[in-house]
Structures are given as C-alpha cells and as structure tokens.
C-alpha cells in the first residue's frame, strides 16, 4: 500500500513539474528570484571597476599611502601641506567653478580636484586659492559591511517579497490553476486519494520553489563575493563562519518555501482570487511583531526571523515600517524555530487536506 502511495506521488510530481517549472505564466517568478542576483552582480562589477581605478592611482602616486594618511587631511589645510603629507596627486584636474558673491554677482574660481587612494579607500579634495575647501571620502569595499547589506536585502526583499510572491504564484496555482484550465478532473478521476494528490502537488511545488529560490540565494552569495580576492573570501569563510552563514541562508530559503508553500496551497483551495489571500497573509506577516504572543506563533516570518544569521539592528533613522518589520523582540532558539515552522506548515496542510476531500469540480462559476 505504501509503495503504491509513493508510485502515485512520484507520478504526480512528474506530471506537475512541467507546470511548476516551465509555465509561461510563471516566468515572473524567475525574474523575481533573479532580481537580487542582478543587484549584487551589478554592485560587484561597479566595485571591481572602481577598485581597478584606485589601484592605478596607487601605482601613479608619488608615495605609498595608508588609510591614516588619507584621514589626516582637513578643511582649510593649505595645498603645500597636503602635498607634503600625501605627495603630488596621482589624478588631478582643474575646473572653473562659479561662486556667488552677492545677489546678482558671481565670480569664477579655478578649482583643483585632487584624488588620492591607498588602494582601497579614495579621497577627493577640492582646492581653491591654495587651500582645501571640500573633502569627499569613499571608503573601500569591506565584506563585513556587504554581508550586512546582504542581510537587509534578504530579509526585506527576498524573504518578504520574492519568496512570498513566488510561492504564491507556484502553490496557489496547483489546484486553482487547474480549476481555471478545466483540467483538474483528470486527477480526480484516478484512483488516488485526494490527500495523496495534495501531497504530490505540494511536493512538486516545493521542488520548484526550493530549486528556484535556493539557486537564487547561492547565486546572490557568489555575485556578492565576486568583487573580493580569494584571500579575503578565504579569511571570511574561515573567521566569520561564511559557509555556516551561507548554509543558514539556504536553510531559511528552504523553510520559507515549506511554510509559504503550505499556506498558499491551502489558499488556492479556498479562494479563486489570489489577491484576497495574498493581501491578508502579507498584512498578517507584517503585523507579526505587534500581535499577541499566541497569535504570533501562527505565522511563518516569526520563525524565519530568528533563523536569519544576522539580526537587523534597529537604527533610529530607519523608516518606522522597516523598523517594525525588522524588530524581533523575542528571538527563539534555532531548533524551536525550525520545529515551530514545520508544525505550522503541517497544521495548515492538515486543514487543507480536509478541504481537498470535499473539493468539487465547479468550472462554470467565475
């Protein structure tokens, strides 16, 4: 009997896979998943380009500079002083700047723009009439900072929007899509228990969602690391548990697919219009931090938040909505979080299986 169930489930997964992976309707899911990869890739490319420019500057510069040298320059310092400290600038150009002197009058002041670099950071000085009038510092790349950015993009965009809507697209269509296509009866007329059908479809959806989104997570990591030397990466992997972080992100990605997948599978059995459940779940998940303790536990993000390798620190300048979303007043232990999320998903699937047993074909109603 059990082996028949597995045969049936694998047959369903095989039939469904074509639809979950290759549906034209689902193209946007790939775009959504690839968006952060493109973002990090562009970021790395820009950094690599700038890094090259700075290295050239170092080669051309009169003397080997350190970060401290760069930071020792202040407004008002004379040009001679700057040259004494940093040497002749490797890159310099002169621009005429119009300066206002009164209501209707202005004069043109020649301004020298001087750039220095220590190979990583860049210092740009504006010198007028022999003295420094403007300073701009661009700090170089740092993996620590970038992994912080990664954490933000992951939590705010990837988890809450990309995976959320991706799962909505994949899982809500498992039953609803076939109801709309008028092809669900092909399944309902085979000797398959409705629960088995549901599990088969869920697994097919899960396969697609995890493959798409884990690939995206891994690619995002790779895209972000592209800009660093092998040595920096090795050090990061070694000292900051880079691999463990990557594994944690992948794990959170898979768990998010499990959780949101179960919710949207159930929603697809209950609703014809995807907007209603999408909005309801989105709001419910966003409101999680302000819900009473018991209700909090009936959500997916509650558990995912505690599993993300980085806590987003609340910064007073943050827009209040982000601050609310990011706040995690009571982090829970990893095992409880994993267990809790799986428990919620199973509960939702159990409820869905009650519903699928009573499911009726109704193609005509809109």
């Amino acid at each position, binding site marked *: 009997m059990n082996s*028949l169930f597995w045969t049936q489930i694998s047959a369903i997964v095989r039939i469904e896979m074509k639809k979950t992976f290759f549906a034209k309707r689902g193209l946007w899911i790939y775009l959504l998943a690839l968006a952060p990869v493109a973002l990090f890739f562009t970021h790395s490319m820009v950094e690599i380009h700038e890094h090259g420019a700075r290295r050239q500057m170092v080669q051309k510069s009169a003397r080997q500079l350190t970060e401290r040298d760069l930071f020792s320059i202040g407004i008002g310092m004379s040009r001679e002083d700057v040259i004494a400290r940093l040497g002749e600038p490797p890159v310099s150009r002169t621009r005429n700047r119009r300066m206002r002197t009164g209501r209707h009058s202005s004069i043109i002041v020649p301004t020298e723009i001087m750039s220095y670099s220590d190979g990583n950071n860049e210092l740009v000085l504006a010198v007028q009439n022999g003295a420094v009038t403007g300073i701009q510092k661009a700090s170089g790349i740092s993996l620590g900072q970038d992994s912080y950015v990664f954490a933000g993009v992951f939590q705010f965009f990837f988890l809450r929007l990309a995976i959320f809507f991706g799962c909505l697209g994949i899982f809500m269509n498992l039953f609803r899509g076939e109801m709309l296509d008028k092809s669900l009866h092909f399944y309902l007329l085979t*000797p398959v228990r409705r629960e088995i059908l549901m599990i088969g479809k869920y697994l097919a959806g899960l396969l697609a969602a995890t493959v798409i989104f884990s690939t995206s997570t891994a690619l995002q990591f790779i895209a972000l690391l592209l800009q660093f030397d092998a040595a920096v990466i090795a050090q990061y992997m070694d000292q900051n548990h880079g691999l463990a972080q990557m594994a944690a992100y992948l794990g959170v990605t898979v768990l998010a697919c499990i959780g949101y997948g179960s919710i949207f599978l159930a929603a697809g059995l209950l609703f014809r219009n995807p907007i209603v459940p999408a909005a309801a779940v989105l709001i419910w998940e966003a409101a999680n931090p302000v819900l009473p303790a018991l209700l909090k536990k009936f959500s997916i993000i509650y558990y995912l938040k505690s599993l993300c390798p980085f806590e987003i620190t609340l910064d007073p300048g943050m827009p209040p909505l982000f601050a609310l979303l990011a706040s995690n007043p009571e982090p829970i232990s990893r095992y409880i979080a994993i267990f809790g999320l799986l428990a919620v998903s199973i509960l939702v699937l159990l409820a869905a299986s009650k519903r699928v047993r009573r499911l009726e074909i*109704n193609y005509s109603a809109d």
Partner: protein
Amino acid sequence: MSDRIVFDNVSKFYGDVLGVNRVNLSIPPGITSLVGPNGSGKTTLMNLMTGLIRPSRGHVSILGLTPDQPEQLFHLVGYSTQYDSFPKGLTGYQCVSSYLRLYGFDRAQSEQLTWAAIDRVGLRDAAHRKAAGYSKGMRQRIRLAQSLAHNPRVLVLDEPLNGLDPLVRAETIALFRALAKGGCHVILSSHVLHEVDIISDQVILMSAGYVAAEGNIQSVRSEIEDHPMQILIRCDRPGELASRFFAEDHVVEVRLHNDRRGLLVKTKAPDRFYLLMNRIALDGFAVESVAPCDDDVNSVYEYLIGAEEPTR
C-alpha cells in the same frame, strides 16, 4: 459486491440552482442512456456518480462503493466528461499514459494499455500530436480512450457521440455494444433520444432535474415509432442529397433550408436514416453536420414526457 449503480433519493443543488432532485435509480449492467434537453441534469448525475460533485442529499453507490473512495472506485470506473479541455501541452498519448501511472501500472504496462486504448478509438496516427490541437471529434475520442484505458467495469460517458462523423459514430457504437456484452455498465448521455435508443438497453429520461421516465427501450421506442423526427443536414450539395432522400420510404418530407446550404429531413425511422447517412458519407458528399432540430427535440420530449416544454 452489488452489480448495480444506485441513486438513493439523491438531490443536488448548486446554491439555489437545482441540479437534480430526488433521484432514485438502480442501474443494471448494459447500455443505459441518460436523455434530456440542455440543463436537465445529465452531467450532474454523472458527476455525482464519479464524486466530482457531492450530493446535497441522499446517497450514491457504484457496485457497492461510494464515490468518495476514489482509490477504489476508479479501478472500476472510467468517466469521459463533457469538459473539452486537456492538461496543457500534453499529446494525446501522454493524456492517457501519464494518468495511467497513477493506477499503479509500471511504464511498460501503461504503454501497452495506452496503445490498446488509442487503437480502440482509432487515433494511432495522431497519438503524438498535442491533444489541445485535435479536432472536436478527435478530442472526443481521446477522452473516450482515456476513460477506458484501464479496462473499467463501469464506463460513464457524457455525450460521447457528440461531434463524431457517421463512420466513427458507427464504430464507437459498436465498441459500446461490445463492452456491454462483456458485462460492463455503459452509461451515456445524449440530448437526442433517437441517437441512442437503438443501442440502449434502457433509457432514463431527464427533464428539469427530475427523472421523467425510466425503463426498457422497447416500450419507449414503440411510443415514438410514428412520431417523425426532423433532422438538419449541413452539406455541400443539398440539392443532390435531397433527391437521394426522396427515394427512401421512411422519409416523410425533405426541404431545402432557407440559406440553401442545408437540408431538413423528416423521417419515421431514425435508425435507418442514420444508416443511410453512413453510406452517403462514403459516396463523397461533404457532410458538415447532422443534427436533430432543436424544436423538434423538444416536441419529442413533450410527447414522451407529457409535460410542457422545459423552460430553460
């Protein structure tokens, strides 16, 4: 195990809309036809039989099984629905074979069963084309193949003759007969009594959600005998065809249709008429469609059921 399909006081409401009401039936093996005009509840009965919908009241039992045990029921039952849609992107062959795997057949078995079913409906040449691109009649036939591929004992077929040309229709009817002879239940629906009466062991006449009459075809048949049936034929050379019909003694009246691209024929012996149509198709007439005129169908019902025309 019972050999009956039993409806025990079954009603189905779609919200406020009546599907069928207080249906009591006990259907033995053989060919049983559900006949009734559009909206009379034929599809509703068939969907109830196969668990696609659930009764609002009452019980359905198929050879002792209830429809909410699909894991057992569908080893015995095959259903060709009236829904003219297929899973996206599947060929005719895949439509049959991929679902056969769900019965527990291995690859070789399902391949063999699939070809057997496809041969039974004569679609071998088109088997590897996309089902969605099939003609109406071919779609009808691949659905039939799908419903009988696993050799069920109960075949439920919603308007299975719809859209078939006269030759294929004759072959398909022969197939139903063979199945019934082998002890199967063949339940089919039609809104044309004449289309199915000659092949049915019993008919169930549906009207507005009720079973209006039920029984042995002989008795029902003799009632209609001298009630001529009007049929509209669409073809390329109606004039020539008209002269062929005049020669037949069962044809009471032949008229050219107003648009001159069709022919209205009144016949007292529909079975002989349909046989004649088969021969005509072989003689090179391009027959586009053969359909009983709707008002005429209703008048047959009126006559049979003794009620006013179904108002739907």
